Structures are given as C-alpha cells and as structure tokens.
C-alpha cells in the first residue's frame, strides 16, 4: 500500500485561497423558480429528451436518456412543468446557446418514489453499475465523464486499487473539502459500493495536507465502517496534485502510459463527490439532481459552499450568496487556473460546475502585454506532464499541427502551470487549447472528405453501370429489330414463292 509517497514532476506551490468559503457550513439552496437543464452536461453524446413541453415532472424523474455508449441521463431537479426544449445559454467557453430542457418549478418540490438498492452488498456488480448509470452520475471533479463506464473495470487485468480523489488542489475551490468535512460517511460508503462494483482489492482516499478537518472527518468515518480495505492517505499540497495521473504517481510511484488509461496499470480514480453521489443513488435511490458548488471570489458578498439544484442559474446562485459586491471583472466557472470565463450569469449550474468565481478587477489584473519567448525553459520545469511547452508554443504559432502532435500536445492537461511561470506572460494554455480544437476540426474535416470521396466514387460507379446497362439494352433492342426485319424478309420470300407457284398453276391451266 502507500507507505511511501512519491513525487510527481513539475507543478507549483500555490496559495489555497479557500478560507473565505470554508468558514461556514454547506448551505442548501431551495429550488429556484426556473430550472435549465442542458442536454449535454457530460463528455460524450448529448442526452435525448424523454419529455414534451407541457408535461409535469417530479424531482428525480428522468427527463433525458443517455444516447449511445458514452452519455449520461438527466433528471428533473425539482417538480414542475416542462415549458420548453430549446436553445439556452450554457456554461461553455464559447458563450453559445445549446439545447436545454426548461422547467418551471411549482414550488412543491415533490420527488418520485425512491427505489433504494439497499442490499447492494449482495448485488451483482452489473446491477450497481446499472444503478449508477440510471442515476445520471458523472465525474463531479469537473471532467463529467459518465461514471458507470469507469466502474466497469478491465476483463484482462484484475483491478488493484480504487483511488478516491479528494486532493482538490486548485486554489479557491473547496466543494470537495466541505463535502468530506460534513458528509464523510457518504464518501466512505460510496467507496465501499465502488469497490464492490469494481472487484478492486483496496481503496486509497487521498486528501491534501491543507485539509486537516476533512482528513479528521474521513478518519472518523473510516473508524465507523471499519473496512480494512479503505485507507486514508494525506498527500502534500502541490498543484496539480488532483490531476488523475499526478495523484496516481504520488500514491503509487507508477506513471500511467501517455497513450493509456489508469486502468492499464490496474487503477481507477474517482472524485470523492462522485463516491458520495454513488452512495445516494444506491443506498437512497436518489438520482443526481444537485451538487455542491463553491461560490467565492472578491465579487461575492457571502462566499460559501452551496448545495444547489442542477439547472439553477448562476445569477440566482449569486443572489443566494448575498449578491455581487464591488466591481466584478470576470465570472469564472471552475478555478482560477483551469476554469473559463462565463459570458453571462444566465447560464445554469451543470453537473461539472464545481466552482463559481466572481473576481474583482484587483483580483484579475488585465493580462500584461505578451513578450517574445526567451526560451528560458521555466514552463518545461513546471509542466507536470513532462512536456516542452515552449516547443508546443513554437509549432502552434507556426500552425504546424503535425509537429505539435509529435510533441504530445494531447498529453497536456491544461493545468496552467506554464502560463503562471512564463516571464513573458505568454498565454500558453490558450494556444494549446486553440491547437487542440483546430486539430480536432481538421480530423473531422478529413473524415468528412474521405466519406465524400467514397460517396463520389460510389456514384461514379453507379453512373457507369447505368450507362453500361443502357447501352446493353439498346444493343439488344437493335438486334431484335434486326431479327424482326429478317423475319419479314422470309415472309416476303414465302409470299413471293407462293405467288410464283400460283402463276405457274395459272399458266398450266
């Protein structure tokens, strides 16, 4: 097990900035008047609506079903009437609108009858996975990957370790910290359910050493459950400790292959909040309809952690926390390192919303002018993924996307460490994000072009075949005509012969 901790490469010591929001306990926000549920809140295909406008729905009722393998169901987060299924602003860096189910709450907050899987200890792993899938649970650390897929294990290799990620290394975010402090039992219970689903041997719950209260609460919960398979590990606070690959390296000293998954080395990593959601879905039969969101920053009157219904609009969330204060320069979903700016507070809280950061002008000084790269290599030292950001930047600037991929652009976890240390203030991660979407777009274009080529070739082949068939038909017709003509000639001959015979007869008589 984890007697000795290891150290991941690169990374930074960052200030926590979590005190403001951890001073008070989690506040439960009542359901708002209007719920906006984007159909795409997770990685993979958007969910498919299962309700029609005008329909009454209850809390916990599935309103959109998973579509395809990698997708997640979406549930109504309060009772009310579906008023529309239309485009609404979503929390996305593009600031664009996307299809959403919009529900007007009736204020009664009635829930569907929960169906717990209380004897889960005797249930099959498949049944647990099915339950997690039907509850619409996705990775709540921010990536929002459908969790049931990550509970499937690997047939070829027995699973060794389940890691519960409670590192929460990014400054300002404290939703997992507060969850562990107040609901440690749920996390540990979730871990036990996940161990059952995965057939894993043991579980490590990793918490950074700047969260002593959370560690204490988890220790108490562990004592209560007395499950020898689960162990609490305190890891050093170092950004990005909460990165999946970084945390695995810290705990086990092993590196996940750059083109592989943690599964390949017998490890699966889940967020602590995901474990708590699994507990709720299995033990209480509650689908995922709310999550804890850290609302913080100098621009919020009362920074705190709020348990908000999925679909609550950011503006209402801010209002619940006492409204804006002072001069808010930027509203960010996620943390200051990896989050993105929201165009408007009209966007709803989604399953991936771990933090809402309202930063004042002093907190977010406008970016100073970008200077040329001096090739100091500070970014390469800071990179936790062992990349060479300066080379990636160089080739991205030249739009040489093949070379960028040779330098393993897709291993970049966009943690922002290189940005922070760059003495020339080059927005490196922005360049890498640009390169990534550009490459995805090009690959898609290429696939479309290949498809078009195949269709064109098939069409050419068809046209040729049709022309050939036409030709064949004409030839046959011509032949038949010829035959018919030759037939006429014979008849004429016969007629002529008959005529001659007749004549001879007449002459004789």
């Amino acid at each position, binding site marked *: 097990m984890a007697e000795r901790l290891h150290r991941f490469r690169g990374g930074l010591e960052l200030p926590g900035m979590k005190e403001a929001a951890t001073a008070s306990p989690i506040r439960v926000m009542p359901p708002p008047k209007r719920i906006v549920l984007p159909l795409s809140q997770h990685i993979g295909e958007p969910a498919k609506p299962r309700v029609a406008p005008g329909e009454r729905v209850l809390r916990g009722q599935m309103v959109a079903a998973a579509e395809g393998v990698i997708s997640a169901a979406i549930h109504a987060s309060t009772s009310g009437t579906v008023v529309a299924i239309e485009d609404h602003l979503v929390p996305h860096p593009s600031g664009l609108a996307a299809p959403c189910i919009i529900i007007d709450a009736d204020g009664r907050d009635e829930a569907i009858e929960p169906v717990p899987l209380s004897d889960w200890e005797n249930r099959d792993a498949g049944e647990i996975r099915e339950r997690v899938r039907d509850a619409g649970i996705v990775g709540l650390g921010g990536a929002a990957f459908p969790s049931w897929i990550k509970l499937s294990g690997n047939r070829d290799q027995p699973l060794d370790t389940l890691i519960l990620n409670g590192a929460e290394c990014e400054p300002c975010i404290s939703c997992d910290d507060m969850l562990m402090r107040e609901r440690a039992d749920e996390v540990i219970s979730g871990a036990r359910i996940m161990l059952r689903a995965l057939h894993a041997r043991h579980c490590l719950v990793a918490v950074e050493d700047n969260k002593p209260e959370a560690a204490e609460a988890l220790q108490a919960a562990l004592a209560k459950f007395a499950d020898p398979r689960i162990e609490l590990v305190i890891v050093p606070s170092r950004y990005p400790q909460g990165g999946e690959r970084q945390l695995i390296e810290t705990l086990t000293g092993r590196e996940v292959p750059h083109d592989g998954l943690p599964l390949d080395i017998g490890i699966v990593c889940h967020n602590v909040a995901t474990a708590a959601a699994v507990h709720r879905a299995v033990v209480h039969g509650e689908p995922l309809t709310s999550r804890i969101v850290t609302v913080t920053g100098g621009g919020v009157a009362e920074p705190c952690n709020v348990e908000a219904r999925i679909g609550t609009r950011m503006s209402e969330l801010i209002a619940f926390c006492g409204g804006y204060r002072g001069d808010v320069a930027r509203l960010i979903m996620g943390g200051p390192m990896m989050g993105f700016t929201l165009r408007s507070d009209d966007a709803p809280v989604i399953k991936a919303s771990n933090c809402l950061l309202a930063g004042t002008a002093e907190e977010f000084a406008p970016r100073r002018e970008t200077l040329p790269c001096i090739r100091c290599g500070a970014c390469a030292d800071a990179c936790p993924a062992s990349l060479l950001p300066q080379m990636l930047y160089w080739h991205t600037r030249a739009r040489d996307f093949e070379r960028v991929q040779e330098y393993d652009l897709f291993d970049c976890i966009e943690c922002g460490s290189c940005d922070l240390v760059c003495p020339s203030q080059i927005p490196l991660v922005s360049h890498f994000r640009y390169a990534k*979407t550009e490459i995805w777009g090009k690959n898609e274009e290429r696939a479309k072009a290949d498809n078009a080529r195949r269709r064109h070739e098939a069409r050419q082949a068809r046209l040729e075949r049709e022309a050939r068939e036409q030709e064949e038909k004409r030839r046959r017709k011509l032949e038949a005509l010829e035959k018919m003509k030759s037939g006429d000639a014979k008849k004429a001959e016969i007629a002529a012969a008959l005529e001659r015979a007749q004549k001879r007869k007449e002459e004789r008589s």
Partner: protein
Amino acid sequence: MLTAILAMTLLALVFGALLGYAATKFRVEDDPVVERIVAILPQTQCAQCGYPGCRPYAEAIAKGEADINQCPPGGEAGIRALAELLDREPKPLSAEHGVEKPKLLAVIDEQTCIGCTLCIQACPVDAIVGAAKQMHTVIEAECTGCELCVAPCPVNCIDMVEVPVTVRNWKWPEPEKWLSPMKDAANG
C-alpha cells in the same frame, strides 16, 4: 581466377533473375503520387479546378498538366500541403478558379421546391434525397458545399448557408485574436 569470374557471373544472374521476377510480381499498379494528392484534396467534387472531380484533378497534377493552385475549397492550406508533397514552391490561389470561402451547406427551401430532380442529378456525392414531383432535401452531414446543385434549380430554391457554429464544433480562437478586442477597448 576462373572460379571467381564464374561465381560473380552466377551471382549476377541469380540476382538479376530475382530482381526481374520481383519487378513483375510486385508491380505497383496505381500511381502512389495520385493517391497522396487525392488524400490532400478536400473531396468537395466541385469541379472549380476545371476537372470533373478531385481524382481527375489529382491525376492532372501528377501528370504535370494542372497547377497546384486551382482548388479554392482546399485554400491556402491545401496549396501548401500540395507544394510540400510535390516539392514545389507554394503560390497564391489562382483567381480564375475561384476564391477561398468558409465552408457552406446547401439548404433547399422545401416550400418552393417543385420536385424536378435536377439538383439530385447534379449532386456529386448523392447528398440530396427526393423523387420526381416529390419534395427534395439535403442530407446535411453528407453535403460538401460544392454549389453544383444551385445553378440547375429552375425555381432558385437552393441557398448556400454557412455551417452554423455550435457548442460541439466551436473552436478556441487563436490567442492574439482572442486578446485584441480587449486591447482595442483599452486603446479606444
């Protein structure tokens, strides 16, 4: 001395026979250069290059009959890729063949369509469905935006529209462009 000469002659004969056999046995039928040019061309099949499709144009380039700057949908990036493949100097897009445009999509106004099938016959990738005197429509995912269906339509019911930007195909802008509006605001 004689043995050496004999041995060398024998070896030469054996290797010669081997090479000769390989040359006929493993002969490459297709011209690999054409295939590689085809892989670069955008497969729009728009015929703006003056050839009846991307493959004929690729064959013409390979033979040296056509220049590398006649493909407007491929644009500057396409010309650069061709120049690199063929080891030539890149040059600007030839103006007589057209201009580089954002990717378009054909949309049939189904109210106006009379079901004449002319556009179906014109579409190089069979992306239009319909039948005589029945309404036609474009299969969005298959349309290459070649515009070949626009001219034959007797009632002008086909529009070319830009492919809409959604959350799923949105791309991060290049940082300099991303920052410039803020800079402009600060300066202005």
